[in-house]
């Protein structure tokens, strides 16, 4: 979204880069480790959880943005984006669950956890906000011209 670069947005971008980078590194490292030298219990539990931590970090990053953004209109847009993401995630996972319950789809999520769909939902929310902002700008331009 074309938001002015507030300090909160800059912190959000830095945190997001850090957590997404960590996720990629940990995902590749754990994938390699579990394929070539599967760790024994209980280390396998701790190591399997490691790539999930940066994902939780991304969720925390989004929540911090809602707290730290000082521009209340933009904060409202970010809250709406998060709500759209939550609705999208719940919708997809609920439908997926029922398709599995009635054996239409095989069991398991094949690596696509709830967080994946929540992040997809953030994208949907960003597109929605973008349309809304564009429409507001067009209305304002039409008002100025009239």
């Amino acid at each position: 979204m074309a938001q002015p670069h507030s300090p909160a947005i800059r912190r959000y971008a830095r945190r997001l880069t850090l957590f997404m980078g960590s996720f990629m590194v940990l995902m590749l490292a754990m994938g390699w480790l579990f394929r070539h030298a599967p760790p024994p219990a209980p280390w396998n539990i701790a190591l399997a959880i490691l790539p999930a931590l940066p994902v939780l970090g991304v969720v925390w990053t989004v929540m911090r943005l809602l707290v730290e953004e000082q521009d209340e209109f933009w904060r409202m847009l970010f809250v709406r984006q998060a709500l759209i993401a939550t609705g999208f995630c719940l919708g997809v996972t609920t439908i997926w669950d029922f398709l599995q319950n009635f054996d239409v789809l095989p069991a398991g999520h094949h690596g696509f956890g709830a967080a994946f769909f929540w992040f997809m939902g953030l994208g949907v929310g960003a597109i929605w906000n973008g349309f809304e902002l564009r429409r507001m700008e067009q209305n304002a331009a039409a008002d100025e011209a009239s």
Partner: protein
Amino acid sequence: MNNRLRVLRAEKGWSQQDLADRLEVSRQSVNAIETGKYDPSLPLAFRLADVFGLPIESIFLRD
């Protein structure tokens, strides 16, 4: 909620960005309030009133 923001801003000869700078908010916020897409919080409404030197009820009108 209806408001007279656009008229008041025009009387001062301010652009949306000028008003946004005075309020310390984004230009999009001013645009959203002016077009009635967003109702400001009470603290921001008071800041608007201060900027224009008017009571809140002279800026915001009941539907």
